[in-house]
């Protein structure tokens, strides 16, 4: 019986998290008339797929989703590839430079994106990267990198230095101890960073809006916004249907990768 309260709390939390998704699903299946009821219903009375037909018929959602996927996968992989060695260096080689670097990373987070969007646009235009997916990937990597670096160096710091020292005593060089000892222990951190970078890029709107002008390169957020009009009026049905489809790739990505998100690998690694 003592276990009931925690389970109840857990259940309430799951409901809290699932509510927006379930509401999206319910809205996507409703007719416009049913959406305008004063007492909203959970289960649509006359479920319809018309919203999905409208959403997919009017906009190239599949193409946009594929482009978003390419951008999000590329930028998350590149972000992790760049930030991992940098994070290791920042965490392990403590010096004035690394402290300044960490501070700089944090300072860079306080700049509102909108302030730098125009100068950045001019740079990208001169590099002929406007209107291209590689350009957008470069921008996403740039803006995800500081936080990814910050996240990862926290994970690196959590790996006890003694483990590397123990490996060194056993004759392993630094590279060998990184590959055989540190890397496996960092896997959950890498996965979390990868997820963070993927979701940031998948949802990113502002940079995509200003950098991508050609309909053939537009990403999913730019396509979703087309179902909204002025003053907050929106075509709720098709918007809900399209948004629901837009959440699916992140869910799949998360489902595949979350098995690696384990904690406790290092429990008992160092006994004092």
């Amino acid at each position, binding site marked *: 019986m003592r276990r009931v309260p925690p389970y109840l709390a857990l259940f309430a939390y799951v409901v809290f998290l699932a509510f927006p998704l379930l509401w999206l699903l319910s809205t996507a299946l409703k007719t416009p008339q049913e959406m*305008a009821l004063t007492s909203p219903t959970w289960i649509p009375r006359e479920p319809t797929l018309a919203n999905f037909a*409208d959403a997919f018929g009017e906009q190239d959602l599949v193409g946009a989703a594929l482009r978003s996927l390419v951008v999000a996968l590329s930028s998350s992989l590149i972000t992790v590839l760049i930030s991992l060695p940098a994070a290791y260096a920042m965490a392990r080689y403590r010096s004035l430079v690394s402290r300044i670097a960490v501070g700089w990373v944090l300072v860079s987070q306080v700049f509102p994106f909108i302030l730098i*969007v125009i100068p950045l646009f001019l740079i990208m235009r001169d590099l002929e990267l406007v209107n291209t997916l590689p350009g957008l990937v470069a921008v996403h990597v740039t803006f995800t990198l500081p936080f990814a670096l910050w996240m990862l160096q926290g994970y690196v710091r959590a790996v006890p230095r003694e483990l590397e020292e123990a490996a060194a005593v056993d004759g392993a060089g630094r590279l060998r101890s990184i590959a055989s000892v540190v890397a496996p222990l960092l896997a959950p951190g890498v996965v979390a960073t990868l997820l963070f970078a993927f979701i940031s890029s998948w949802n990113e709107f502002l940079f995509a809006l200003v950098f991508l002008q050609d309909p053939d390169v537009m990403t999913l957020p730019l396509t979703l916004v087309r179902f909204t009009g002025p003053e907050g009026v929106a075509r709720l049905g098709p918007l809900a249907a399209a948004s629901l489809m837009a959440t699916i790739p992140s869910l799949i990505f998360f489902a595949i990768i979350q098995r690696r998100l384990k904690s406790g690998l290092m429990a008992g690694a160092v006994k004092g």
Partner: protein
Amino acid sequence: MRIRSALAVAAIVTLAAACGGGGGGGETPSGDGQPVKLDFLSLAWQKESVAANKEIVAEWNKSHPDIQVTYVQGSWDNVNDQLVTQFAGGTAPDVIHNDSPALAGFASDGYLLDLTAKLPAELKSDIPQAAWDTVTFMGGEGEQGVYGVPFLQESQVIIANKKLLDASGVRVPTPDNPWTWDEFSEAAKKMTKDGTYGVAWAMKSPVNRTLNLALNFGGTFFQTGADGNTTVKVGPEEREVLQRIHDQLYKDKSADPAALGQGTADPLPAFFQGKFAMLPTGVYLRQQVTEQAPDGFEWVTLPAPKGVTAEQGAVSQTLSIAQDSEHPDQAMQFIAYFLNAENQAKLAKGDWLLPTSQKAESDPAITTKENGWDVATASAKNLVVAPFLKVNGYDEWRSKVATPVLQEYYANKISLDDAAKRLVEEGNQVLERYHR
């Protein structure tokens, strides 16, 4: 709101523009046998409207192989952020859909082409001067110019529950004989009974609606002195509509207080349930009503009430040409085709708005009695340029001063005198910064 977010970045545009220049939307220079390519940024979002836009562009591309237009769909919520950046970078689309309040700033920054000399006579004469006034602004070099072609306008109407309207026994107003504000208030009182209110004012964004209706009594809210500087005024003319709406809410108790904080489309569920009988709103909301009304629900479109006049302030949706466009003449040709009378009727029907083309106004598609088109289209004759359209600093006045003040006034938290005082005093502080 859209402009406000753009203002957030406008401060650095000047700096960025210094490094900008060059570019241009079109890709292929004409004269080498290749077709000219134009980008057309459209903000259409309703299903029928997007279809009409695509159809007209496709027809153009078919009949003009030498000038090919790419249809690019944008969104109202973010268009000004997008344009500020693209203008600064010199990569803005050639043909740009927007609305007249946004053009003033872009025109004075020199980003839009002055169309005065390029407008074909037929297009110019088909659109009335009152609509051209909504797109005439000071350009970057201090000269008056026409910075867009106005094509869709919104007017205010009243959407009414037919059953409740008929049951009240009041005279049904017509475009030729609309209600006076007194009759409107009387009608609202008569329809208020058994838990049903006569009217609902959705005033989440109260400023534009109040200012547009205030013209009924000659209320302009702004005056320009001999020195050319604009100040806020709230005299007897401006107070009329404010007082009348307030009276409906708190004296007559004929207006539903629940709707006050709601956005434009939010009161519809309660309207369909018969919680109130009349919804003063923009003509475009008829689309939502048609789509969402439960089966058997009957509704009618009534003209807005009149005061001293039936005049309402208007803003227009517009098509402009970017200053940096490499093919301004071809862009103008496309605009002239896109906005001919036949196409304007299609676009108006798709967006449930009013065309500026006088020839289009008689198109059967938008004069039919069905869905209140006859009343909506007839209201176009009452549209005059909204007085706030040319006030430098209006957008900041609206968001920082007028929106909170009017919200508090309509919520009965402050008196009309207090509201008037704040609108003027705080408002003039804002406007002062914009004086040249």
